[in-house]
């Protein structure tokens, strides 16, 4: 057991898998010699050498194309797209090539590869370095979408993603990189598509993802003091989605709140809401409420970004009001 930051959990997860499997390689911009711009991948070059841990030019299409080609013929690449926003410059490789290969070739080709990226806002980086893009990825058939909220989950879900036979978009919350917790020593391998209850309660279900999970927990703690008990579910992956856990919880509490960092239109919460409505409408005791960033580009100024992103206070207030009415 030792303290592990979310940031260092990335290198630990990658190292764990690279030790176990020689076919795992890692590439990206400034990931090797510099250890990553978020200092997430330090030590990997030193341990595994320049053949397996590679710095690339600033060429996202070339990075993902190389990862894809290598995955087609025996390697298990991990590619880094530094900020998730930069997916937009290589989205062809992601959406048209990687996501479609297995299906389009009638199963001849599978792509065991992971694309990691620092996702989301909260650091005042402005409109082009702060986007939460989980809904972009979720909208493409053929991609798995994983987003850990704790250091332990970074290790375990990253390992599961690397071992997965299909392409995974792995979204790290850049606002959580500094967070730490005690994590046990030894190998950690988790399972994709398993949500986890991080707070128990029977009055409402709050479903959250990535950096919204600690905020939902803070809101639940605040509400608990007022006697409102919420179950907080950390989805951990959007694809595959653990619908069973969501449905079980909502069937018990009768109320569903989703907390999404992505802009509102077509956010994952809409999908969860639709599933719940279709499956267990009769168990609902009130309307489903989505708490999201408004449908706007993120502003840079401190007070404006603060206002835009869901906060613990906004979550608590929304739940409080909805349950009172």
């Amino acid at each position, binding site marked *: 057991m030792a303290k592990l930051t979310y940031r260092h959990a990335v290198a630990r997860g990658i190292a764990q898998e690279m030790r176990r499997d020689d076919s795992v390689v890692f590439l990206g*911009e*400034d990931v090797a*010699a*510099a250890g990553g*711009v978020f200092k997430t991948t330090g030590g990997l070059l030193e341990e595994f050498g320049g053949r397996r841990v590679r*710095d690339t*030019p*600033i*060429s*996202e*299409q070339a990075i993902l194309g190389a990862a894809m080609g290598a995955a087609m013929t025996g390697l298990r690449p991990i590619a880094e797209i530094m900020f998730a*926003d*930069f997916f*937009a*410059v290589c989205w062809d490789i992601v959406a048209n090539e990687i996501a479609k290969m297995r299906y389009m070739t009638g199963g001849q080709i599978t792509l065991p590869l992971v694309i990691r990226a620092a996702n989301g806002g909260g*650091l*005042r*980086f*402005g*409109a*082009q*370095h702060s986007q939460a893009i989980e809904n972009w990825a979720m909208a493409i058939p053929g991609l798995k979408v994983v987003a850990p909220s704790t250091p332990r989950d970074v290790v375990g879900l990253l390992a599961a993603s690397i071992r997965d036979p299909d392409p995974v978009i792995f979204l790290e919350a850049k606002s959580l990189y500094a967070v730490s917790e005690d994590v046990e020593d030894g190998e950690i391998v988790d399972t994709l598509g398993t949500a986890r209850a991080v707070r128990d309660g029977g009055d409402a279900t709050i479903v959250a993802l990535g950096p919204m999970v600690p905020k939902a927990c803070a809101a639940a703690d605040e509400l608990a003091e007022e006697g409102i008990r919420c179950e907080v579910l950390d989805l951990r992956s959007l694809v595959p989605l653990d619908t069973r856990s969501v449905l079980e919880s909502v069937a018990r509490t009768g109320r569903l709140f989703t907390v999404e960092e992505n802009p509102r239109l077509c956010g994952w919460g809409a999908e969860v809401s639709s599933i719940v409505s279709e499956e267990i409408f009769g168990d609902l005791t009130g309307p489903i409420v989505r708490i999201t960033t*408004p*449908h*706007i580009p993120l*502003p*840079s*100024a*401190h*007070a*404006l970004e603060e*206002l*835009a992103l869901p906060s613990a206070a906004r979550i608590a207030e929304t739940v409080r009001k909805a349950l009172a009415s």
Partner: protein
Amino acid sequence: MDYPERWEIDDDPSLDEAALLEMLRAMLEIRGLEDEIQRAFTKDLVRGSTHLCTGQEAAVVGACSVLRTTDSMVCTYRGHGAVLAKGASLAATFAEIVGRETGLCGGKGGSMHLTDAGVGAYGSFAIVGAHLPIANGLALAARQQGSDAVSLCFFGDGSTNIGAFHESLNLAAVWSLPVIFFCENNLYGEYTAWRATARVDRLADRAGSYGMPGVRIDGNDVIAVRRATGQAVERARAGEGPTLIEAVTYRHRGHSRTDPAKYRPDGELERWLKVDPIRRLENLLATRGVSPERLQEITAAARDAVRDAVEEALSAAPPRLEALYEDVYA
């Protein structure tokens, strides 16, 4: 290889003293404002990240010195100097960086997105390479509207490895667009030396594959920058198409505020501090007979202008919260 051949810069007799002093003023103000931004960071007045252009002032000032207000300019997140050189106000620039409502973009853009359409500064883009295609569009519109305005596009060495670079230079050449592709080769893209990411000797050589002229110049020589850009602008205005300029320069600070720049070989920064573009221009002015007192006067005036701008910006309010929903249409 990537270092000025001589310390002295060549004079250009066609430039009068006023033009040289104007460029000096502009460079000093940029230097001063970047220093203030760095200071503001340590006081937590600037959030997020910021990318200073300290050391690269000759490139942006020399290039913009041959533009008209009606010419357009686009640049990168390392664009504070470029936007100022194109004519943006010091106070509004600083205010944007510290997130005030009087900022160029009302505080919604921030350090990486300084924009002042009124002076032809059509944006600072934080996605590497994103604005090269856009520079073509600015040039296309000028052409279509019968104007002889040109489009100046600043970008870094690292940006020449992104796909948009290839598409943009080719299209500009094919359509003979009035674009000046101005590469500030500051030797590094983030933490990686440019020579580790390319196998050509000079980035300017890449122009050849698009059928446009490419020149490599000393980017710390404001006169050389002005001359090369002037020639490219003339070609562009005359309808002869785009030019690629590679201006070799150096950023004195790390890539961004969190970068201590440990990847630089020992002594490299010191070598480059010796060829500080401001010192070299001051030296040229001295050899022309401009008195030390006159130079000091200009330095003091720049310092005062920066100080006043910072004061003005810091006394402004943060954006109103309602601004969050302004300019939202979809």
